[in-house]
C-alpha cells in the first residue's frame, strides 16, 4: 500500500467558504516548453529563473497584431527596466522593438545592443546633462520631465547651435488611482500647455512627440481612451496655436499581465482586459480626435504585458516544519530578494507531481533569515517531499531587474529557445561578484 503522509485539518466553515475548500485540487507543472522542471534543476541548479522565448514571441505578436490590425503607424519600444538582460532585450530588438530607457546605464546598454540611436526613447525624471547631450547628439528621442530639464536641453541646443526635437511627458487624471502625477507636466492644470508654449517660443526647440505613462497594471482600458484623447487635444493645440506638427504620441506602458493582484479575488482571466480592448480604446480615440492631415505615429513602451508570463522561477523545497499556529511551513531556496513583485502578487504556484493526498494550509517561506521572507502566506498544499520543485509564475517582469543581492546569491537565468534548447543567459552570483567593488 502506498504511503501518504498523515494530514488532518480542522474544518472551519467560515474560513473554507471564504478562501475555498482545503480539498481543492492543486495545479501541477512538470515541464516548461517540453523540458522537465527536474531536468532543468539538475542541469542548472536551484533556484532558477527560466524564460520561454516562444512565449515572449507569442505575447509580442499578440500585441503587435492587436494594434496593427487597427492602426497603420505603430512603433514598439522595449521598456528596459522591466527586464534588461541582454539576451531578453535582443529578442525584442530582433522582433523590431526600439528601446525605452530611464537611466544612463540603460541608455548605454541599448546602444551596446545595437539599437539605432534614434529608436531609443530617453525617459525619466533625472537625466544628467552630459547624457542629455549624448542623447541629443545621437538624435535619440528625449522625453522631457520638467521645466528645468527643458532649459537644460535648450542650453545644450544653444551650445550646439541646432534645433533639438523634444517630446514632453504629460501626466493627467484618467480615473485611475493612485494618479501618477509626479512625472512630466500636468495636463489638467495647463502645465503641459505652458511647456508646449515654452518650446514654441524657443528658437532651439521643436516639439515632435507627446508622451504619457499613466501607471502600471492598468485594469481599465477606458483609462487609455482618456489619456489618448488628452494627448490628441494637446497635439491639436500645438499645431493650431503654435504651428508645430507633433509626429508621434506615446502611450507608455501599463497593460496588465495575467498575474493575480493581491486583494483582488477574481481571477486575472476575469479582471485583466484583453490586448484588443486596450488597442481599441487607444486607436479609436486617435481616429476620433485627429484633426490634422497626418495620423501620429503611435509609440508603446509595453513592459510587463510582454514579458511577465514568459518568466518562471523554479525553487526547491529545502525543509518543512509545523508552526505554532498549526500551519505547515515550507522553506524554499528562493526568497523575496529575488521576487520583488511578491509584495503585490499572489503568484501562480504549481507543484511537480500529483501527490494524491489531502491539502493543508501552508506557508511558503524563503531562505532569508528575515520575518518578511514570505512568498505565499496561505496556500493549500499536499504534504510535499523534500527537494520537490515548485514553479512560480508569472515572474518575468521586474523581478530580475529589481532583485537584490542579499544573504544569498542571485540565481542563474536560463532561456528556452524556439526549438526547446536551453541556454544560460545569466550566471549566478558568487563571492567574487558580490565583492567585486569592495575596497579595503
Amino acid at each position: 500500500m502506498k504511503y501518504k503522509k498523515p494530514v488532518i485539518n480542522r474544518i472551519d466553515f467560515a474560513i473554507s467558504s471564504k478562501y475555498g475548500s482545503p480539498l481543492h485540487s492543486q495545479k501541477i507543472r512538470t515541464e516548461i516548453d517540453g523540458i522537465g522542471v527536474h531536468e532543468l534543476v539538475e542541469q542548472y541548479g536551484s533556484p532558477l529563473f527560466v524564460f520561454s522565448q516562444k512565449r515572449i514571441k507569442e505575447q509580442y505578436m499578440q500585441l503587435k497584431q492587436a494594434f496593427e490590425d487597427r492602426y497603420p503607424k505603430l512603433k514598439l519600444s522595449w521598456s528596459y527596466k522591466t527586464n534588461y538582460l541582454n539576451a531578453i532585450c535582443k529578442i525584442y530588438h530582433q522582433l523590431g522593438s526600439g528601446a525605452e530607457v530611464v537611466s544612463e546605464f540603460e541608455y548605454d546598454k541599448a546602444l551596446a545592443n545595437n539599437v539605432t540611436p534614434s529608436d531609443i526613447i530617453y525617459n525619466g525624471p533625472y537625466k544628467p546633462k552630459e547624457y542629455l547631450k549624448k542623447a541629443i547628439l545621437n538624435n535619440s528621442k528625449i522625453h522631457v520631465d520638467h521645466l528645468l530639464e527643458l532649459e537644460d536641453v535648450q542650453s545644450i541646443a544653444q551650445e550646439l547651435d541646432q534645433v533639438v526635437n523634444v517630446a514632453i511627458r504629460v501626466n493627467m487624471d484618467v480615473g485611475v488611482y493612485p494618479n501618477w502625477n509626479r512625472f512630466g507636466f500636468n495636463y489638467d492644470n495647463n502645465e503641459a500647455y505652458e511647456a508646449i508654449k515654452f518650446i514654441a517660443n524657443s528658437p532651439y526647440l521643436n516639439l515632435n512627440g507627446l508622451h504619457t505613462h499613466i501607471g502600471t497594471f492598468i485594469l481599465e482600458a477606458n483609462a487609455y481612451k482618456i489619456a489618448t484623447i488628452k494627448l490628441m487635444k494637446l497635439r491639436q493645440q500645438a499645431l493650431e496655436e503654435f504651428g508645430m506638427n507633433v509626429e508621434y504620441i506615446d502611450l507608455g506602458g501599463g497593460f496588465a499581465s495575467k498575474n493575480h493582484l493581491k486583494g483582488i479575488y477574481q481571477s486575472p482571466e476575469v479582471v485583466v482586459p484583453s490586448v484588443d480592448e486596450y488597442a481599441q480604446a487607444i486607436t479609436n480615440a486617435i481616429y476620433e480626435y485627429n484633426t490634422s492631415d497626418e495620423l501620429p505615429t503611435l509609440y508603446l513602451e509595453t513592459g510587463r504585458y510582454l514579458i511577465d508570463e514568459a518568466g518562471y522561477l523554479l525553487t526547491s523545497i529545502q525543509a518543512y516544519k509545523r508552526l505554532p499556529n498549526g500551519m505547515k511551513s515550507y522553506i524554499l531556496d528562493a526568497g523575496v530578494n529575488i521576487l520583488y513583485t511578491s509584495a503585490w502578487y499572489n503568484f501562480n504556484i504549481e507543484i511537480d507531481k500529483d501527490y494524491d493526498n489531502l491539502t493543508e494550509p501552508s506557508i511558503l517561506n524563503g531562505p532569508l533569515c528575515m520575518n518578511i521572507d514570505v512568498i505565499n502566506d496561505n496556500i493549500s498544499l499536499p504534504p510535499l517531499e523534500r527537494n520537490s520543485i515548485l514553479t512560480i509564475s508569472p515572474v518575468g517582469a521586474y523581478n530580475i531587474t529589481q532583485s537584490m543581492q542579499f544573504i544569498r546569491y542571485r540565481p542563474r537565468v536560463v532561456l528556452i529557445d524556439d526549438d526547446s534548447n536551453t541556454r544560460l543567459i545569466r550566471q549566478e552570483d558568487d563571492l567574487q561578484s558580490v565583492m567585486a567593488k569592495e575596497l579595503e
Partner: protein
Amino acid sequence: MLHQIIIDENNMGFIPSIGASFQMNETAREIINHIQQGLHKDDIIQALVAKYGISQQEALIDVNDFFMKLKIYGLIQ
C-alpha cells in the same frame, strides 16, 4: 479529546461535545486509531515502518509532526 472522535467512511471526524469537525486522510485515521488503542508514539512509528516500508526517519518526522498538529487542535495533551 481524541477518544471521543467519531470518524465516518469518508474520513470525516466529528467530536460531538465541542461540535468540531475534522477532515483527514487514511494515514491520519490509522494513527488516531492507534492512539485510541493506547499505542505510544514509538509503537506507532514502528507500525508505519512495518506496514509501508518507509524509513524510520520519515516515519519519526511525520508522526512527530502529526502529534504536534493534534496538540495545536487541542486533541491531545
